[in-house]
């Protein structure tokens, strides 16, 4: 039993990312309102960013900025002292992609609203079927 608990606790960040991923996926599959779906899409994307950031953590590591000794002006760069910077770089890109997707999705939602005067998917489909 203790094994299971320590197993769960040792990776709790990974479980949380899965929960968030599933919240986003659920909203995108089930929700009826388009803006809700867009929010779900963003939660889905941030969950993956959380996963990547969790990869980069090192216990006893510090921020990924080289510390320069103020007196001597020298520095020691030992890899184990600093958090892994690569996933951070990748995730900056992913955040940018998510905001770009958000912009386009909202632009399309506004266009849809102009056309059908509603954001509910079932009402839109009802209007399409009527035509």
């Amino acid at each position, binding site marked *: 039993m203790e094994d299971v608990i320590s197993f769960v606790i040792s990776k709790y960040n990974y479980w949380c990312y899965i929960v968030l991923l*599933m919240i986003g996926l659920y909203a995108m599959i089930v929700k009826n309102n388009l803006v809700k779906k867009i929010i779900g899409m963003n939660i889905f994307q941030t969950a993956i960013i959380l996963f990547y950031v969790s990869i980069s953590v090192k216990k006893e590591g510090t921020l990924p900025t080289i510390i320069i000794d103020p007196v001597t002006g020298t520095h020691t*760069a030992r890899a184990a002292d600093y958090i892994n910077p690569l996933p951070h770089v990748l995730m900056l890109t992913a955040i940018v992609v998510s905001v770009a997707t958000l*912009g386009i999705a909202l632009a399309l939602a506004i266009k849809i609203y102009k056309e059908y005067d509603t954001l509910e998917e079932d009402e839109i489909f009802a209007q399409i079927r009527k035509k």
Partner: protein
Amino acid sequence: MKIIGLIAVFLCGCLLVYGASDFPGWGDPSSPASTHVSPYYIETTMEFTHVPNIVTSVLADYRGYDTMYETTVIFGAGIACFLLLRVVKKKDPVSRLYRHKATGITLRIKKGGKIPDKSNAFERIDSEWVPYDLIIQISCRLLVPLIQIFALYVIAHGHYSPGGGFQGGVILAASIILIAISYDLRSALKIMSERASAFLSAIGVFIYAGTGALCLLLGANFLDYAALDSLLGSGMVMARSHGILIVEIGVGIAVMAVMICLYYNLSSEGKQDEGL
């Protein structure tokens, strides 16, 4: 539908949990992710680029090619919003509202009606207009220069502290958006017109990709800033550092312009007439 969705999502989650059980322990310094490629960046960033912030040096130099496309993604989003939403035809709205500044009387000008003379006695107002709030407007006006100075600091100081072109650009855009919210869209458009924001977004990304192409013309590989040495004359390492600064400025300009462009188009449904 809801229950099916819930079950599907739950099963998917269980699968992912099962897949995640094999991960190396959280925060383990000896996991493959921390030992294979990334130590190289940590150990060589000062030697090759003279940039203490490893994230900046990896972002703009080691993997600068990704970042160029990241900026392009943002640029593409701005253009896409323009293409999707912008209403270019100058259709007059059914009626326009003008307010006499001295007396506060509001005039409704019907379609085709004549606009009051340009004596500055009248001002155009939105159809959903709330009376001016002195405190909000003055405090926002005071905040704007502070925000902009902070944004410039974030861009310029990205070598040494968290920050860089992207964050700085967003903060710069926030200062203009603040004006658009606290006054109205037209005041913001006077400061930064749509045309200017379109040009700036193209120029910003062009600075980035153009720096890369310049390196190509100087005989090195694409985006190899060390080639800029022959222009800057500051040694290979400092040339990389300066190259990073140049592209960060480009990113800042592009991101600022695109964020403003996005806000203009989304808040006015592409009419760029009445905002929030």
